């Protein structure tokens, strides 16, 4: 049996910060990442990050991943498990870690779930044709493996991911003849939208994909304008010859392991779907199990980092580490998080969090 004081599952922005914070306070930390490299989605982000200095603003995402990777690996208090999958949660709380063909059962005093999110998808005729990708796959192909997905890409979704990936496609020399968005407004930060717009990419709001066509792979899509009830307006159909259709239609928290651990969950659309109830220190209804980042609510990386920080310091404090500074550091981090969410861009998260009860406020 492997033993860590704090076991962190997932090494995206939330998990990296949680591990560093808990270890800085003296806890013995294990950080588990199923991918070959630490960093989660940060690895694929070539754009500069928003936020403030404390959240590495104006640094490119992959640079942030590189810096935090080095900090974690240089830390004597952190053991890193790459290429290692947390398979589940046993009844006695043990988490089986799969590395290669071996299972390493892991016990811990505190567990931080920073598992991130999964992509939503979209149903339409022929949506299973080769050439239709999720935006995460396109980013992995291009920004991890250096392979472009095709020559002409139609993007579905004008949220931050859709617009950022469109820009990255342009940078890779791939044509993006359309960004198609069902909502009446662009969800992305408008500055991101303006970046692709001035490179000549049209953004069709209140539009959706009607159908895909192709014999062996995607050759063409038809998209159309939609009314408020999301019904296509007859006569508004447009054809577009493309070899790739990229879906960037939102994320949902990756919470299977939280369900399995028996954490109380609630469905809150504003936060992306099913999310665990948690205290102000991100402790779930199961004592000693914390959540941080997109696993608890779909948000920006800067917020995920601060959540990781809070969960890491709270987990360490629960084990008696860093108690003297804890109240002050916690208050500062909570204030930092509140500031990030304070503006109009944070309204949806604020609304979602208001709906989410604290553990203990509901039965079951």
């Amino acid at each position, binding site marked *: 049996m492997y033993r860590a004081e704090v076991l962190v599952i997932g090494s995206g922005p939330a998990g990296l910060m949680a591990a560093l914070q808990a270890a800085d306070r003296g806890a013995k930390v294990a950080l588990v990442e199923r991918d070959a490299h630490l960093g989660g989605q940060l690895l694929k982000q070539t754009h500069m990050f928003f936020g403030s200095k404390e959240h590495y603003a104006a640094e490119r995402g992959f640079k942030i991943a590189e810096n935090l990777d080095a900090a974690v690996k240089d830390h004597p208090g952190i053991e890193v498990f790459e290429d290692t999958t947390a398979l589940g949660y046993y009844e006695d709380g043990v988490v089986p870690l799969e590395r290669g063909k071996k299972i390493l059962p892991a016990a811990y005093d505190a567990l931080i779930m920073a598992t991130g999110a999964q992509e939503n998808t979209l149903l339409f005729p022929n949506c299973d044709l080769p050439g239709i990708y999720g935006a995460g796959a396109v980013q992995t192909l291009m920004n991890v493996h250096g392979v472009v997905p095709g020559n002409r890409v139609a993007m579905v979704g004008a949220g931050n991911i859709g617009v950022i990936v469109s820009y990255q496609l342009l940078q890779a020399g791939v044509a993006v003849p359309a960004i198609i968005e069902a909502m009446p407004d662009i969800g992305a930060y408008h500055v991101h939208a303006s970046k692709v717009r*001035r490179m000549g990419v049209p953004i069709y709001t209140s539009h959706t994909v009607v159908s895909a066509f192709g014999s062996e792979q995607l050759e063409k899509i038809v998209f159309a304008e939609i009314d408020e009830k999301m019904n296509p307006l007859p006569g508004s159909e447009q054809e577009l010859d493309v070899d790739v259709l990229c879906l960037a239609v939102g994320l949902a928290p990756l919470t299977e392991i939280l369900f399995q651990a028996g954490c109380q969950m609630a469905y809150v659309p504003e936060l992306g779907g099913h999310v665990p109830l948690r205290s102000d220190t991100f402790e779930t209804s199961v004592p000693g199990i914390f959540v941080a980042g997109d696993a608890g609510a779909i948000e920006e990386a800067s917020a995920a980092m601060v959540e990781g920080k809070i969960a890491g310091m709270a987990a360490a404090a629960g084990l008696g580490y860093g108690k003297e500074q804890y109240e002050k550091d916690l208050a500062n981090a909570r204030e930092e998080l509140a500031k990030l969410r304070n503006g109009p861009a944070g309204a949806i998260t604020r609304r979602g969090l208001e709906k989410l009860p604290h553990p203990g406020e509901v039965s079951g």
Partner: protein
Amino acid sequence: MLSRSGVPTKKQIESVKPSKERLAKGAVAIVECFQEIPCDPCHTACNSGCILPFADINDLPQMDFDKCNGCGVCISACPGLAIFVVDESYSEEEALVMIPWEFTPVPEEGAVVRGLNREGEAVAPATVKKVRSSPQKNGAYIISLVVPKELAFEVRSIG
């Protein structure tokens, strides 16, 4: 409308323009940031105190144009690539526009390229006056373009 098309309105552009007198004096930063998002590196990057401190990180940047020397450090510090420098004192007929650039190929100095507006339409030939890598050394470039003066607030990209 910006939230529908990604293109800021004329009114929005007017709202971030310095006075005619200030424009005539020379290079000045134009911050085309119209949405309150949690982001403040423009203020942190500015060495001349021209981009004022943020009361709230979600605030829109506020400028003291008289302090701006047009150095362009903010151009590549803005994660949204929303800052440009305009110098209307460049010549009688022409203005210099500095834009952020993250594409290859990087144009050669002296080349004549197509100046694109905020919708990506070619509006005038633009001469590449200067190409420098960003002060942040983050792989981006700042390109100085010579454009007809009346297009100093139109040309925002090249193609």
